[in-house]
């Protein structure tokens, strides 16, 4: 790339595009403290009562708990399954390594709604409708590609002679992995973990088909609430999600660098 100052017009254009990206976020945040059900210009009064309403609503509280449970369980499981698989794929110990990698990553390009309906039919046929384990496994399928991508990138950037040094010094393959390789790809794994966690927490198009009766994740709860009509408590709970996402993003940027997760 060329050095030197950017033209002012280009900077203004970029600023406007960034403003476009931030616009709905700001609107949601404003709506969450606005006294009226719909945002008006000028705003008529500031209130925190929508937040109070959300934090007293058992529906939302249950949904937050359920989403966290689901996201944490599926992300941990995905990491545990992905790490050994990535180690084998990285070392090309398997025939057709390329094809296997493609299969593992394919949920990324598969239309999520298709995975959702296929799983709906599958669990119906097996008599497992509303089974929490199936929901967790479905999320594992969806978030594993993110973990695999960052883990493979981490392994590719890892100096193989470090592992060899450990093994020559008397470490078995397993302890060399735990003592040297794992610490070496820690930042990549952390980035993959966070991205998988966020993806699972946010997932709607597959989750909506597999929910146990009477339970819902937070995004699905918001989704249904919107279907019933716009209500300011939706803005409040959305704002809570925005803040949580922002905190996670800043954490990742501090610890691993945001570029790593893309």
């Amino acid at each position, binding site marked *: *790339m060329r050095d030197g100052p950017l033209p002012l017009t*280009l900077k203004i254009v970029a600023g406007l595009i960034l403003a476009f990206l*931030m616009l709905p976020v700001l609107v949601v945040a404003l709506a969450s403290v606005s006294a009226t059900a719909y945002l008006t*210009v000028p705003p008529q009064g500031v209130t925190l009562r929508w937040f109070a309403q959300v934090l007293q609503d058992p529906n939302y509280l249950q949904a937050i708990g359920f989403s966290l449970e689901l996201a944490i369980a599926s992300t941990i499981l995905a990491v545990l399954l992905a790490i050994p698989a990535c180690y084998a794929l990285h070392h090309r110990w398997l025939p057709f390594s390329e094809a296997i990698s493609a299969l593992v990553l394919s949920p990324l*390009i598969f239309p999520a709604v298709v*995975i959702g309906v296929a799983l709906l039919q599958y669990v119906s046929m097996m008599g497992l409708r509303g089974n929490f384990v199936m929901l967790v496994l479905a999320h594992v399928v969806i978030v594993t590609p993110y973990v695999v991508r960052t883990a493979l990138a981490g392994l590719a950037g890892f100096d193989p002679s470090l592992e060899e040094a450990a093994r020559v010094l008397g470490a078995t393959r397993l302890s060399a992995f735990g003592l040297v390789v794992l610490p070496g790809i820690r930042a990549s794994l952390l980035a993959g973990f966070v991205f998988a966690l966020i993806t699972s927490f946010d997932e709607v198009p597959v989750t909506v088909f597999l929910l146990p009766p009477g339970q819902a994740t937070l995004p699905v709860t918001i989704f249904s609430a*919107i279907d019933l009509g716009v209500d300011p408590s939706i803005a409040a709970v*959305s704002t809570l999600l925005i803040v949580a996402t922002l905190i996670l*993003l800043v954490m990742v940027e501090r610890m691993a660098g945001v570029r790593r997760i893309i």
Partner: protein
Amino acid sequence: METRRPLGFLLITPLGLVLLAVFVAPIAMMLPTSFRHYGAGAAAAPGWTLENYTQIATDPYFHEVLARTFTMGALVTLVCLVVGYPLAYVVARSTGAARSWLTVLVVFPLLLNLVVRSFGWMSLLANHGLLNNLLMTLGLIHAPLHLMFNLTGLIIGLTHIYLPFMVLVLVAALQALPKDAEAASATLGAGPMKTFFLVTLPLTAPGMFAGSVLVFVLTISALVTPRLLGGPAYKVMATVIYDEFLSDLDWPSGAALAFVLTLIALLIVAGAGLLTRRWTAAQ
């Protein structure tokens, strides 16, 4: 490289089993469903038929849905490309802390919940939304503009969602530019505009292509935003599949449409991969 197949198989087996049981098998088992007759209450009637596929090809309702889906995909891709390029250029040219902040600002909406973002757009674009409210207060309009539950709303919402993907792909492409190509052009007497159109733009064409393929495939597969911003009437393939499975309970027809959508997405990705390989091989 040493080959250690037994150990390799041992390490991949757990993940492989989960993928087979919860990804490959369900999709494979949906294939026969798509050749079944419609039966009441999600259960398929006996016998086999091609009707579910032929109706997609012949029924004007499906034609409209397909046309709508691809129009939406093409328009969102085009807007993302045009809007994303200047932003990507500024990000790629920045350094240090500015670079870090710009990246965070681009990535943040990407990580933010889809439902929340769509809700933000609804608050803005609805008949009683902020935008109409503002325009009416200013006296510019007397009746609210219809910005939602139609193509306009969908394009705005989906562009917002997939723009970060396009920007990140373009930033990578701009960074991969040979360092001196632009400088060389400048020293050869080309002005900044000429340099951009003769050097920078053609050299980032593969990145623009890759970003466009990504955004197009994601857009035609999207469910949440079309459902919220498109509403119950303005339907695309993903929302039709959703309704066939959850409200109409016509699984065979929904399954057929799901396979058509999947096939289109996979063919585009595979075709783009092939083209890119030819492209790089030719250079």
